[in-house]
Every structure is written in C-alpha cells, then in structure tokens.
C-alpha cells in the first residue's frame, strides 16, 4: 500500500470534519483557496508562504484549523462570525494577485466560501474534484520529448529564423537623460513554439531545452555573422549557452564583429547552464573576456542568488526580473552586488522603475522602462 502524503492526510481529515458537521448538524464555515490556479509567476515558494499568511486572520477565529491540501490548495474551517477577518483575507489576497506581470485570475475563481453543514456536500465535491489530477482544461502542456525535439530541429533546419528574431531596448535611466544602453537580441521561443510546436512546453524538460537552445544559438550566431547584419548595429546583449561561446559559430561571429562593437557586446548566460558545466563556464567566460565581451547572468532572482555565489561567478551584469516582492527581498542582493551591475526586467509595472531608481539601479528593460524613457526623452525635447 502506498503511504499517503501529508496533504492527502489533510484532505482526509477535512473530509471527515465536514462529514461530522453534516451528521451532527454542527455549524461551521469553510474557505477553500485554489492555490493551484495561480499563474506560474505567482507559484514561487514565497508566494506559497504569502498565500498561507493571507489566511492567517481566519486562524484567530474560534475552532479554526488550516488544511494544506493536494493541488496545492488551502482550506480553513472555523466557527462563528468572521466578517472582519474575511475582509483582511481578501485584502491580502488582492495584494498577492497584484504581484504578477500577467493578468491574474479573479478572486472569484480562486476563493470559495462554504456554510456548513448546508454546503457540506459542495465542499466534499470540491475536495474530491482535482488536487491529485488537474482538471483537463487546466492541464499543462506536455513537455518537449526527444521525438518532438527531433521533429522541431528538422523544421528549424528549413525555417527562416529571422522571423523569430526579436530585439528589445535596455535603457539607461541614470541621473542624465535616458539613453539606450543595448538592444537585447533574442530568438522568440514563444513565437517559435506557436508556429512550429503548438501545445508543447518547450521548457518542460531542462536537458532537452538546453539542446534546443544550443541549436538556436548556432542559428542566431550565424544570422548575426551574415554579411551586413551588424554593419549598422549598436551595442547589444545576446542570450547564449555556455557551450555556444566555445563553438565554431561563435568564432565566425567574433570574426565578423565590427571593430566599433568590440567591447560593447554582452553575452547573457543561463544559470542552469553554468551549473551543468561549471568548468566550461570558467573557460568560456575567460575566452569571452579575452575577446572583450561582457558577461551577464540571466534570471537572477533573489532565490537564485541565494544558491549561486555571485562573487565567484565574476559577472559584469545580473538581469533581475521584477516582482512586487522584490523590494522586500533585494537587500542581500544589493549588499553584495553594486546596483550599477543590475539590469531590472521591469515588465509592465511602473513601480519597478521607481523602486529600481530609488536603490541606484540604472539599467531597465521592458514596456515600463520603454514608457519611462519615452517620457524622459519627450520632456528633454
């Protein structure tokens, strides 16, 4: 017999409590929070903690008990009036939902209240439905598998990748006038997926994603090295795998790089790729520096920076994605990394730019930074 996990045991205890209420006609209230319906941007560990903390006011009610259910979902059962506590809970949850650059689901789709014993059957149905297995409509896309990757690589060999090429400006919003620091040149995985592999989670398997991005690196470098491509280019950032820096395509790209761009190109590396082959990372960054490239760490969240020892990495820049929780988490990061080395991916949130500037960050990327630079340049004009 398979041992049950703590969340499965919690579900059984809650179901037994509801059944007792039904049998004895005891009045209770219950709240169910579908944490599993939060978008991935709200699925980080600290969001889970915030979700639990948001329900804390209810735990002060009589006979209150918290249940951590499969899914994950959270439930609180209590006795008596809890209107004030519920208002506090709603406030906290709305604050949590504001912590995402994408459209957050409505609270009506996340939080459900039940009066026991009348609505006991509904709560039992909700407990039986989902949690162990996601609803079909909510089922995630299947991860990339080896056979699909081979098909995708065959399709890429025939495809004109120029149509997946994107660039986004990284702005310097310093004490002076706003200026463009670099173009961030990427091949859009989202566009590529939509066209060539819809319904497939390209990032679902870390190892296959690395192979795919290495293939894309080779094509991107070949594209950049093609005649005339960089003739009128300004400074830019390019996402690369560590092994791509050591490949033949990079040498060709390096040979084609105009002299005016030497020292003004930044290679942005993926954290997992560094850990996967740290010795190659050391060799690649040494080579890159010898050829006057700068090096950037991508996706440098505070959680990641707790795991990677940044002083040992020797990065020139760290690209930090914004979340509204960042101001509360960034202290240790700012203690060891100069703010001038940080590139804040501000997304759509104008608060990101305001906070970043308040702590000395000067480099920003994303629509909010585009708007801020537009405003500053319009004022200057």
């Amino acid at each position, binding site marked *: 017999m398979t*041992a049950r*996990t*703590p969340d499965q045991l919690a579900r059984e205890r809650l179901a037994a409590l509801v059944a007792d209420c039904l049998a004895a006609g005891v009045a209770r209230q219950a709240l169910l929070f579908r944490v599993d319906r939060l978008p*991935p941007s709200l*699925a*980080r*560990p600290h969001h*889970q903690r915030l979700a639990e903390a948001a329900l804390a006011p209810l735990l002060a009610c009589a006979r209150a008990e918290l249940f951590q259910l499969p899914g*994950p979902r959270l439930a609180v059962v209590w006795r008596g009036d809890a209107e004030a506590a519920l208002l506090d809970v709603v406030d906290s949850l709305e604050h949590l939902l504001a912590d995402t650059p994408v459209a957050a689901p409505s609270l009506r789709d996340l939080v459900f209240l039940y009066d026991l014993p009348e609505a006991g059957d509904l709560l039992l149905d909700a407990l039986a439905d989902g949690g162990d297995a996601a609803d079909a409509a909510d089922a995630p896309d299947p991860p990339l598998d080896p056979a699909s990757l081979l098909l995708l690589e065959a399709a890429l060999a025939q495809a004109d990748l120029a149509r997946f090429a994107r660039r986004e400006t990284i702005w310097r919003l310093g004490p002076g006038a706003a200026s463009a620091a670099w173009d961030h040149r990427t091949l859009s995985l989202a566009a590529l997926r939509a066209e060539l592999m819809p319904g497939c989670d390209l*990032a679902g398997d*870390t190892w296959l994603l690395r192979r795919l991005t290495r293939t894309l690196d080779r094509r991107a470098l070949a594209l950049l090295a093609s005649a005339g491509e960089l003739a009128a280019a300004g400074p830019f950032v390019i996402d690369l795998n560590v092994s791509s820096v050591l490949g033949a395509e990079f040498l060709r790209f390096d040979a084609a790089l105009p002299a005016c761009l030497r020292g003004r190109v930044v290679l942005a590396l993926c*954290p*997992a790729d*560094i*850990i*996967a082959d*740290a*010795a190659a*990372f*050391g060799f690649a960054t040494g080579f890159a520096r010898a050829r006057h490239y700068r090096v950037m760490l991508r996706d440098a*969240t505070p*959680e*990641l920076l*707790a*795991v*990677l*020892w940044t002083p*040992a*990495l020797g990065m020139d820049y760290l690209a930090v994605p914004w979340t509204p929780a960042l101001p509360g988490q960034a202290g240790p990061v700012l203690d060891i990394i100069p703010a001038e080395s940080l590139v804040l991916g501000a997304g759509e949130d104008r608060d990101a730019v305001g906070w970043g500037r308040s702590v000395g960050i000067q480099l920003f990327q994303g629509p909010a930074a585009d708007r801020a630079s537009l405003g500053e340049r319009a004022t200057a004009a």
Partner: protein
Amino acid sequence: MLPPDAIGVEVRFMEAVADLSRFAQACRGCVTPAFRLVLDGVDHAALSLARPGALDPDLLKLDWSPRMTGLPGRERRLLAQSITALGPGRIVLHRAETEAALVWGRAHGIERFQGRHVDAMLAAARLSDCRFAGGCSLRQCIDRAAATGPAGRAGCRDPALLDAAHPDPQPGPA
C-alpha cells in the same frame, strides 16, 4: 510505513537551479521523515560557484576528480569555502575510486564516500573474516555485495557477511 531516512531522493543540482519553483514544489511532496533530499551531479567547479545549502539538502554528492588535489589557489579557496558553508557532514564524496579520493575527503572533513575503492576495502575486510574466502576473488565479493537480488549473490556461502555492508533494513530502536 517506511522508517525514517529510508529513501534518499536524488535530484540533479542543475535541474533544481533550472526551475527553483518546481524544485520547491517537488520538495514539498517529500516532506515525510522517510525521505531525504540528496543533490547530485555536483562537481567541484559547480560547488565552488554555488551555495547549495540554500536549497536545504540533507546530503550533497560531490563528484570526485583527481584534479581536486591540484587546484590553483583561487579555485581551491572557493571550493573550501563552499564545503565549509554547506558543512562537510552533508557531503558524500561520489566516485571515490582511489585512495587519493579518500585522503582528500578526510582532509576536508568528509566522512561519507561512494565508489569502487570503498567497495574494494570493504570486500577485502570481508574476505579476511570469511571462512569460505578461499573460493572467491576480490572482484566476485565486490560484485556480489553490490547485487540487489539473490541471483547476483549466487556463489556466496556467507550472505550475512555481504549484508553487513548495507544499512539495516529494520528501523533502529527508539
């Protein structure tokens, strides 16, 4: 019900770093006392750049390399700092195939080893104690101790001595 520490769940360090949210989710599914989180796929270069203690593993398997005895000053210093930060008591020196690996590990406070050299040492000790040792080679004794089923132990006339090399299947007294 599984006894405490019954199963070590090994997760590649790189995979954990690739998706810290998913890693945290996976850890939440392994919070019973029976499971122990083991980070593996960690070589000395990766450990020098990392503070894996932030992921709160029970153990970390550090891959042995002969290069570790002759690292340049900065690399040696970074590795020593990372080992100290994690605590050598949480490190298993993996692929410890030589005596040099054991010597290096002991010098760094490591007390857990996995690899053929340890297997050979244990087999040599068994052979010196076994009254049927005359019919067995060292290689046979190593292979039989590594077997997970009776078929792989065929030929051993003192299987209890082989079992002594493995953890007690029953939980210890409370």
